[in-house]
Structure formats: structure tokens, C-alpha cells
């Protein structure tokens, strides 16, 4: 069965520190991969996507993610976290077609001064 795993439910980082959020997927073929961010009480906003090509993907708000086929991973990174990055982050994978995707359960990021 297709699945997306985000092993960290909560992560706390200091403002200015680097960030890496983990995501692993289980799919029959290379899926389409996404990272979304959700601020409290809001819907999901797309940070970045990977369909094919360059395995290092740049997104909005200074985020990037790297696709590693050998590890079935698509980890999200940011070199220096800002307090406004505190939110919940969702990794998702889809197989094209009608763009039906599977979401991970999310990682809640807390940023401390």
C-alpha cells in the first residue's frame, strides 16, 4: 500500500538554527512529492514540489527539499529558521493521474527564541 511516513511528530528548534524535517514514502514507482505548511486555523499552503529532474528542489519561504531515490526520502530543509516558521508541515506523495495524494501525519514545528 502507498504510504508516507513523517517520523517526527514534534520538533523544537531555536530561532536561527538549521532545520531538517524527515519524510519517507512507500510507492510502486517514483511518485510526485510535495511539502505543505499549515499555520494554525488555516488551510495548507504548498511549499515545494518534485515531479522529475533536479533532485534538489527550491521552494517558497527559503525552504528546499532533496529527493533521494535510494532512501525513498524527501526531506525538507531550511538553513536558518525564523519564529514565523512555527507551523505544522505535511509531506505528501501522489502518482499522477487525478493527483490523488497520500499525506503524512504531519510534523509540528516549535521555534524558541
Amino acid at each position, binding site marked *: 500500500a502507498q504510504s508516507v511516513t513523517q517520523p517526527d511528530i514534534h520538533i523544537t528548534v531555536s530561532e536561527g538554527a538549521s532545520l531538517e524535517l524527515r519524510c519517507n514514502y512507500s510507492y510502486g514507482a517514483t511518485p510526485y512529492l510535495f511539502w505543505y505548511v499549515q499555520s494554525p486555523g488555516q488551510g495548507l499552503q504548498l511549499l515545494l514540489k518534485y515531479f522529475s529532474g533536479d533532485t534538489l528542489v527550491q521552494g517558497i519561504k527559503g525552504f528546499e527539499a532533496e529527493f533521494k531515490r535510494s532512501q525513498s526520502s524527501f526531506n525538507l530543509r531550511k538553513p536558518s529558521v525564523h519564529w514565523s516558521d512555527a507551523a505544522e508541515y*505535511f509531506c505528501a506523495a501522489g502518482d499522477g493521474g487525478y493527483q490523488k495524494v497520500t499525506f503524512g501525519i504531519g510534523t509540528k514545528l516549535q521555534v524558541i527564541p
Partner: protein
Amino acid sequence: DVKVTQSSRYLVKRTGEKVFLECVQDMDHENMFWYRQDPGLGLRLIYFSYDVKMKEKGDIPEGYSVSREKKERFSLILESASTNQTSMYLCASSLRGPQHFGDGTRLSIL
């Protein structure tokens, strides 16, 4: 920019009521989706639609139905609301790319 609008941000209903959640997108997207979001469970797909009058069950369709009479509008219907349907409901749309989400409806069933 894609705009996905959900008719209510907050809604309170009583058990047994028939509840309608409305979603409208303004980008002529073919695909539309309804999810519910619960703490610790992430987003779970209830129903999706890839064309007018077409619908497909997602992972948790029980207790729900949908309607898509026009391309831009996708309605989620709770036929007889129950307390275990208290949740955040998210609508999304897509064409041939990532899904775009509305701001969600927080539904409480009393």
C-alpha cells in the same frame, strides 16, 4: 493565484442534522477533493471528483456523500451528523499539478 473558498470557517450543528459544506474554486480545475483532518491522523480523503457529476470514494467515505453539479463547486454532505464527525474539513482542487487548499471548516457536532 488559485482561490479555493469554503463557505464557512466555523459551523456548529446537532446530531441527526443534515449538514452541507460548500467549496468553490475559481481556476476551472477538473479535480476536487474533500479531506478531514484530525490530530495525530493527518489528512484523510473522504471523496474526490475528477469531473462534473463524477465522484470517487476516498479512504473514509462512510457517513458522507458529495455533489458536483458544476465544475467550480463541490459539496460535502453529512446525511445524519454524528458527534464522531466533529473535525476540520478541508477542500482542495487541482488540474495537472499540486492540490490547492481552502482555509478549512471547523465543524462541531453537538
